[in-house]
């Protein structure tokens, strides 16, 4: 068996880079810190590719791919049985994620050398990128669920720091805060889920948890609460954490706001890597979900399905190009969740599992490409809003070409990669749940529509007059676009059904044309509609918006989810909980203490007259008392 203990270096090198740039970055030239960061990631990427090649194609013993614990040290002994360890676990999904993260992260690093040039916090930016890469790589390599939770929190904080990178901008600060708090709320569910799961199974370890003879699967327990077993509840709680991180409905509200961060950050964190952590989490525990708690898996499927539709509808009306992409990301992750949710375990039943991971892989490529392309556009016109754009294909030829490739890929047109992965998801949904399957058909059409709406609004449409003539991005930004475009085109040919499967064994995959052809047709309809409406300036979009004005308005206002959240946080938490508590503390609790002090003072003030030191007063009291006694003795006895 190959020794993979070196994989621990893949996260540790970015950590070292983070500490180095963080502590000494302000003393070096900005570009030096950028190059150090990029070099660290390049090292990680090379190691990740070596790992992938030797793991997948280096020959393996027995049938299928085994899960290998390459490295582990104890970090904290919690109880007699429970120990939190840190280490690295090598199996198909973690190796796949290593490749995805290091590739996208490296592209984003290179791209940022150009995009962030001249920014004040250049070295800070690269330090945070390294911190994020460290955390994300630690997350995917986690050997146990608590290690995952540790890195889960760390990616949360890296995301917070990067969204709030422009910290002088109040909207960025608010967005970073919102992202952190919403995901923290979800993480509370994750934590409760871990507590329940670990208490009942007495282990944190993934290998033990997913083992079919392990305590989780072999003794799932009976119904405990509302007809579901403890295991089901704990998995639902754990999924809540995943849903928060992956921006699933209704915990998605932080993701569109997170676009306040620099665009390369959106590409890395909020498109390709961190937001798919929830998918990875469910995939990591997949055998437990599938074999121990199918009810929890149903929840996953529906949350994924609803999110994908919900986000796709909103994406059709947004005008900020990054927000369109953000809702698109949410929709695509919904696809992945749905695929996991409809999957079974083992062989061809595990098609959904394989499809989810496949889509995760291809999505990382084309969505990072879309964001980086959007970044190049924003870089050129200094504006996020598509209403101020148009006709840019003349000025930005390279960006235009790569953006178009990404749009075709996400729309699911063969033979680009998005077609293959999306098709597998549709097949898996079809065999499991027809309602979800038709939802996904609709989403496929909407996706094609809003992506081409975006594409035409930026690169075609009206001839906008720009203050400065837009210029194509520098080479250092174009190269990552080209590499990712290459990935988007060809990633679909990877034999995922042989590499990443639910039980580690390869299975036969057939293309079901009865499902694939209609889905391509639907996508083409979406593209055609978008072409008619947005290729040239016409009155059609406004007419349609007017004819479905209610739906348009609700979609434009994102179904008023933000307003609901604002009501809960501002009104309920601040005004109806926090403020009364502050008042109560001041006036009731402290008031009682002050009251006790006041009564004591009052009493002592009055009692002190008894000892006034005035002799005549004592004499007066003495004589009065004596007279009263005399009176009693003489007359009443």
């Amino acid at each position, binding site marked *: 068996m190959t020794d993979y203990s070196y994989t621990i270096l893949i996260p540790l090198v970015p950590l070292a880079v983070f500490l180095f740039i963080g502590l000494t970055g302000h003393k070096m030239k900005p570009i030096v810190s950028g190059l150090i960061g990029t070099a660290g990631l390049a090292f990680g990427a090379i190691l990740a590719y070596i790992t992938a090649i030797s793991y997948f194609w280096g020959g393996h013993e027995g049938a299928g791919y085994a899960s290998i614990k390459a490295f582990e040290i104890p970090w904290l002994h919690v109880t007699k049985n429970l120990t939190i360890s840190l280490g690295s676990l090598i199996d198909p999904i973690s190796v796949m994620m290593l490749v995805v993260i290091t590739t996208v992260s490296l592209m984003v690093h290179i791209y940022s050398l150009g995009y962030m040039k001249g920014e004040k916090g250049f070295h800070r930016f690269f330090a945070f990128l390294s911190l994020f890469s460290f955390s994300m790589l630690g997350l995917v390599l986690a050997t146990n669920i608590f290690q995952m939770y540790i890195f889960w929190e760390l990616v949360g904080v890296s995301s917070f720091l990067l969204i709030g990178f422009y910290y002088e901008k109040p909207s960025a600060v*608010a967005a970073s805060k919102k992202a952190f708090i919403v995901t923290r709320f979800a993480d509370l569910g994750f934590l409760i889920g871990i*507590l329940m799961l670990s208490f009942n199974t007495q282990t944190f370890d993934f290998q033990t948890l997913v083992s079919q003879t392990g305590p989780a699967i072999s003794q799932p327990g009976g119904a405990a609460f509302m007809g579901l077993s403890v295991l089901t509840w704990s998995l639902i709680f754990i999924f809540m954490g995943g849903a928060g991180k992956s921006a699933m409905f209704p915990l998605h509200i932080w993701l569109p706001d997170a676009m306040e961060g620099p665009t390369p950050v959106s590409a890395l964190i909020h498109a390709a890597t961190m937001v798919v952590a929830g998918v990875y989490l469910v995939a990591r525990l997949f055998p437990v979900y599938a074999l121990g708690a199918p009810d929890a898996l149903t929840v996953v499927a529906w949350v994924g399905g609803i999110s994908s539709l919900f986000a796709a509808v909103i994406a059709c009306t947004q005008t900020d190009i990054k927000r369109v992409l953000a809702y698109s990301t949410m929709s695509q992750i919904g696809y992945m969740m749905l695929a996991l949710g409809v999957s079974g375990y083992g062989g061809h039943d595990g098609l959904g599992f394989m499809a989810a991971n496949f889509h995760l892989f291809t999505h990382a490529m084309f969505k990072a490409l879309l964001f980086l392309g959007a970044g190049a556009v924003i870089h050129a016109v200094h504006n996020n809003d598509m209403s101020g754009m148009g006709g840019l294909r003349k000025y930005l030829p390279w960006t235009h070409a790569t953006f178009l490739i990404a749009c075709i890929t996400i729309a699911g047109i063969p033979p680009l990669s998005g077609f293959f992965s999306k098709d597998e998801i549709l097949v898996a949904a079809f065999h499991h749940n027809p309602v979800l399957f038709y939802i996904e058909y609709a989403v496929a059409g909407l996706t094609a529509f809003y992506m081409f709406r975006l594409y035409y609004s930026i690169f075609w449409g009206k001839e906008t007059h720009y203050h400065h003539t837009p210029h194509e991005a520098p080479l250092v930004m174009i190269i990552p676009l080209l590499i990712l475009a290459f990935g988007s085109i060809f990633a679909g040919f990877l034999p995922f059904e042989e590499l990443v499967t639910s039980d580690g064994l390869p299975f036969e995959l057939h293309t079901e044309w009865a499902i694939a052809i209609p889905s391509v047709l639907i996508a083409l309809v979406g593209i055609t509609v978008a072409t008619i409406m947005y290729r040239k300036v016409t009155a059609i979009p406004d007419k349609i918006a007017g004819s479905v004005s209610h739906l348009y308005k609700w979609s434009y206002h994102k179904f008023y989810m933000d307003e609901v959240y604002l009501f809960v946080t501002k009104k309920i938490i601040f005004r109806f909980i926090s403020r009364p508590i502050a008042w109560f503390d001041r006036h009731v609790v402290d008031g009682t203490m002050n009251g006790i002090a006041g009564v004591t003072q009052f009493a002592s003030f009055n009692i002190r007259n008894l000892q006034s030191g005035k002799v005549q007063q004592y004499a007066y009291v003495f004589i009065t008392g004596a007279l009263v006694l005399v009176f009693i003795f003489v007359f009443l006895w």
Partner: protein
Amino acid sequence: MNILSLFVLVPVLTIVAIVFTKNMKQTRLVSAIGMGIQLVLAAVLIFMYLSERNAGNTATMLFMYDAVWFPTLNIHYTIGVDGISVAMIGLTAIVVFAGVFASWMVEYLSREFFISLILLSSGVFGFFISLDLFTMFLFYEIAVIPMYLLIGIWGSGPKEYSAMKLTLMLMAGSALIMVGLLGIYFNSAPDGGPLNWNLMDISKITIPIEMQRFLFPFTFIGFGILGALFPFHTWSPDGHASAPTAVSMLHAGVLMKLGGYGAFRVAIFLMPEAAHEQAWIFIILTAISVVYGAFGAIWQKDLKYINAYSSVSHCGLVLFAVLMMNETALNGAIIQMISHGLMTALFFALIGMIYGRTHTRMVNEMGGLMKIIPFLGVAWVIGGLASLGLPGLSGFVAEMTVFIGAFQHTDVFHRVVTILAASSIVVTAVYILRVVGMLLFGPIKNEHFLHLEDAKWYERFSTITLIVSIAAIGLAPLWLSDMIGFSLGPIVQKLTGLPFASLF
């Protein structure tokens, strides 16, 4: 000479040396040297303790020493430490050391200031090493009394009111403790024989249950007042707001831990049966503390009030964990004490430094400070992240250990309160990020702030000491947790198997 006695002797010698100093510069230098020695001593103690344990010494208490000092009442000077007290001594040494540097610029009556400060710390050290209940109580009082002077003379705002309030409430706590300790003393020999104050000896007998029922609330509430137990916590916001920087640091960082430590070492350890019977009442109160303190902090505008309420929440978690009475939760309680001690000291130090520059503590009057004073800004963010339980910093280790420990109880009551207490991690994030956003980020609101200077060397020194300690515990908690866990063994043995009374 016993190494433990040095922990009381060094502060006393430092005080004597301070008396002979001529000006502020000499005073602070002497204080820094004295407390530096103390810090080294603490490091040596930890090292010696660990090597004794590695050598196979399994005695409950190490480095014991015993001398009678008041034979009539059988009062001894009995000292000795286990892993728990060693950890607390380490915490105290770090906070006091950082506190001296945080008060580097105290000019008004500096000699008297440092004398009171170091006197206070000697009381704390004495408390943690004593095994004789009376001696322990004596040191406790030594630690509490100088507080009155420190706030009343060097404080700010309504300092007389705050000093009086704090001292009176803590004295009320002392009175309750005194009743409890006397009760324990008179029941220390139920089978005849001489009465005694020795903690370890008393722990071997069982105090009659009727007496326990009566004495436990006295002792627990008495120590609980110092540990900011709801509803006896109101001294904390006012007291901290008026106290000078180093005093807030010491008070929240160390003195409040005397409460948690005492509640655990005296109340629960000596009266476990009553503790199990009455735990549910106090568990409810502490769960309220945890959530209530966090919500209370959201609405505050004064940085010190925010931190004081945050302390109520975090110290509530200490007592909450103590009441869970199993090994994991108790371990978490001790780590939480240390972690909170370090990070609250960091916060109060930073508040002092920021206030010294901006002359305001109101968050709504500040903004954009990150750009002007980046060092202090970054330190604040790190402290905030520790407070909201970010992995890699100490708060996470403590909280997770507490929650896992509390979750070992399977009944509905314990599950509900645990989830309630755990929900504070969200509320904590809200108030921490709110303050970070208002104070450090956003545009600069006040142009007078544009010319503020970043931290001076002594301020950096103080801050870095605390941050390094926080990160060290957060990154490698194993040795600390194991050191504490080993010493919890005999205590937990006494606690296990007793039935909890419950509301449900």
